[in-house]
């Protein structure tokens, strides 16, 4: 029973960051219909930015976190502007191929810059975990959970309450009508991609100090993000949030009770099963975001 | 008076719903063998929706569709085509990236019989059939009037010829019932007149035609019978003469406008 509680706690914490990853991708995949292979690279980017600013530049941890996310947003916007603008009306295959090219280039740039050796990032939190009866949690992970939750709520608020969010939702529902109503579709796309990328970078910046940063960390993150998006339904933020937690639970329980080797495999099995059984996802309402 | 004959297509109490909207409501009509039947009605009356249901692209909520004794409900579009029911589409629909000849060759799919294993083995029968198919395709193109365009890229054809190509592709599939969805939409009077002559040639091949059209002059000129829809329901069914003066049709569709 204690083990179960511990697993549950771990899953909750991991789920928060997974949710960030998933929400970021569901926005991009849902609004722009772009199979974003660079999503994982933004995740890795966030982690490496933490390494850069905290370990190499000696910056304050919290400041570095803010900076990492901000840079992630900027990088996402840049990718959209440089690579995707031209492909506005291209079919999904073409954009996918461009994203694959960008992914390869980005990951190898990262590998070239930082070398393949995993980098650890020190945190300002005490090393000793917080013990609450039978379960324990490190301060670091607690911090991650809190920040992830804040970001999820903030994103939700942005999408559902703000003007930008309204424009995003309109673009998602019906691009032509939105354009007719005066929505600057191009800018919405850039903003969406930047926002989604920022969330991925945030997830990486949060988890980087928890684990380590290594160049191919983005690959698994990408695939898990897709699993979450499919699980939750394209374009559904509550779906992506729930999906993130569900995946984390399945991973934790699978690793704990079946085999740790298949931990990462859970995500893929999940994708395959869901797509065969209910392709629209668990929470998909008919084409909407928010 | 409807010509005496067997019913090729029997649509009975067809109902199609999209969410809360009833697009087709309890529609019943028949298409008799060898005739040209036109479905008319204002936009949104449910004509193309009915087509989609008949040819398997949509599942009806209720009702049955029977073609020469075979129930079409639940069959896939390609299975319905195998039975001899072939349609064209409202929006121009060709294989844009292929040549005109290849477009028709694809349409000849059902007329060819070569199995994959024979193809891979390079059997002589495959080569023979390919030659026969190419000849057939050219024949169809000449019948339609596009013979000169055979080698050209389909996407480069002017609009009027594209619509002809669509019919060529459909004819290649050896239909016994041909469903044409607004075939002269966007065509100029000369092209429309040409199409009416083409329709006469198609009739001569013993092909039954179900037609959706807005161009009343053309409809009056080619149809044996007309069925008029409004808001998903049939409001009139009869010969062109009967329809022309039908009060409800005039009200719902023709309105105060005079169509040639």
């Amino acid at each position: 029973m204690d083990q179960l509680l511990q697993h549950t706690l771990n899953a909750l914490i991991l789920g928060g960051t997974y949710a960030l990853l998933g929400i970021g991708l569901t926005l991009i995949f849902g609004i722009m219909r772009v199979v974003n292979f660079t999503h994982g690279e933004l995740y890795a980017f966030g982690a490496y930015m933490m390494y850069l600013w905290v370990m190499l530049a000696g910056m304050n941890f919290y400041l570095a976190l803010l900076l990492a996310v901000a840079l992630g947003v900027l990088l996402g916007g840049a990718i959209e502007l440089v690579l995707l603008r031209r492909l506005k009306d291209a079919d999904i295959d073409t954009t996918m191929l461009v994203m694959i090219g960008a992914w390869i280039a980005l990951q190898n740039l990262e590998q070239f810059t930082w070398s393949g050796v995993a980098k650890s990032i020190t945190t300002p939190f005490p090393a000793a975990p917080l013990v609450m009866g039978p379960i324990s949690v490190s301060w670091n992970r607690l911090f991650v959970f809190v920040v992830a939750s804040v970001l999820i709520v903030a994103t939700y608020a942005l999408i559902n309450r703000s003007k930008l969010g309204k424009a995003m939702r309109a673009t998602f529902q019906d691009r032509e009508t939105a354009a007719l109503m005066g929505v600057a579709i191009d800018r919405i796309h850039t903003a969406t991609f930047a926002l989604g990328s920022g969330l991925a970078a945030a997830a990486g910046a949060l988890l980087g100090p928890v684990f380590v940063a290594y160049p191919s960390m983005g690959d698994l993150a990408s695939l898990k993000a897709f699993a979450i998006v499919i699980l939750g339904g394209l374009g559904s933020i509550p779906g992506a949030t729930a999906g993130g937690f569900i995946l984390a639970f399945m991973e934790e329980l699978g690793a704990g009770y079946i085999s740790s080797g298949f931990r990462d495999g859970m995500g893929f099995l999940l994708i395959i099963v869901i797509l065969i059984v209910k392709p629209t996802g668990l929470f998909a309402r008919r084409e909407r975001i928010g | 008076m409807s010509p005496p004959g067997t019913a090729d297509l029997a649509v009975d109490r067809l109902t199609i719903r999209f969410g809360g909207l009833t697009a087709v409501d309890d529609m019943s009509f028949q298409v008799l063998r060898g005739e040209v039947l036109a479905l008319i009605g204002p936009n949104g009356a449910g004509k193309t929706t009915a087509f989609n249901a008949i040819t398997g692209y949509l599942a009806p909520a209720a009702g049955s569709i029977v073609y020469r004794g075979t129930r079409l409900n639940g069959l896939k579009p390609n299975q319905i085509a195998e039975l001899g029911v072939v349609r064209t589409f409202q929006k121009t629909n060709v294989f844009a990236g292929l040549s005109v000849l290849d477009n028709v060759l694809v349409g000849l799919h059902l007329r060819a019989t070569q199995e994959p294993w024979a193809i891979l083995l390079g059997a002589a029968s495959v080569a023979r059939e390919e030659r026969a198919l190419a000849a057939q395709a050219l024949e169809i193109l000449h019948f339609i009037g596009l013979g000169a365009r055979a080698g050209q890229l389909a996407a480069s054809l002017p609009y009027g010829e594209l619509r002809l190509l669509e019919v060529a592709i459909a004819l290649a599939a050896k239909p016994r019932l041909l469903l044409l969805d607004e075939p002269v939409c966007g065509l100029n009077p000369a092209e429309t007149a040409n199409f009416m002559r083409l329709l006469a040639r198609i009739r001569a091949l013993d092909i039954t035609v179900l037609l959706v059209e807005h161009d009343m002059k053309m409809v009056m000129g080619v149809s044996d019978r007309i069925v008029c829809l409004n808001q998903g329901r049939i409001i009139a069914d009869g010969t062109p003469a009967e329809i022309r003066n039908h009060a409800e049709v005039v009200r719902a569709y023709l309105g105060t406008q005079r169509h040639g």
Partner: protein
Amino acid sequence: MRHAATVVLLAALISVPLWMSNLYVLHILIMTGIFIIAAMSLNLLLGFTGQLSLGHVAFFGIGAYASSLVSLGFEVHLLPTWQVGLAAKPVWLAMLTGILLAGLCGWVIGRVSFKVRGAYFVIVTVSFAEVVRLVALNWVELTQGPMALNNIPVLRLGIPGSFEFAFLRKPANYYLVLAVGALAYLLIRRLVYSRAGRAMIALRENEALAASVGIDVTRYLVLATFLAAGIAGAAGALYAHYVRIVDPEVFSFIYTVTMVIMVITGGKGTLAGPLVGGLIFGLLPEVLRAFSIPPEIQWVIYGALMILIVYFLPEGIVPALSRWWHGRRPQDDPPALAVKSEAAP
């Protein structure tokens, strides 16, 4: 004209081991050839049928592992009390098994794909490849996991006991790969210029229209994936019995990416595309290595190249070259599917 060019090319290819004394170059050519076969198979699925399958390396790997395991023999416990085993079989039989098994997996994926299209299909295929990789990595009893399958026997043809030829040395393997490659090319070519091939292309171009003229979408999707997977499996089997070591890295996504790059840059949906793309991306790493460019930067270059090709030569190199050679505008030069000489008006 076309036949003459093909004959010349084949003759040139056949002659290579006769004058190429550098075994390393021969090795590169063999590996490139294997990848070209895999790329051709992906082209069938991606280029001709328009299905963006990004799990293609799974079929390559399944072919490699299946062929290796059948030729080595294996014994596994499916349950603690239930043991299943197979004695070592001749390599030619193992290879056929590999091809069939890969094809079977392709058949399954094809059936699944009917329900799941577009971007979702991409994700299913990628996930499938990852699951297979994880199985290969973790089912140590069967696959030796990361410790790899070693000492895989080479192909032997002939009558055992009297005359037998072993494909041990590089020139022999070169000819083997060339033969299989030529066969694969021939099969694909026959398929494309046939009713089945037209059906697949029609699926890619306009599925609704294809269905309306009687083309069974599922049937041809499944046929395409079955054949593509089988040919990829053949490439995998060739790889296994040439390199003679197979580990789970053979399922790496990077190989799928390599094949995709080869097909896209060469020209998807053309017969020559994978050949050109395969040659370029098979030989390019060696050229770059000669200039001491680190492997990561190589990949950055590939990624950038892929993006540039998608922007400026979206149809790939072969169609662009073909147009330039014939000096024609795009609309005059559609990809002809019909039997050329008879159909020309």
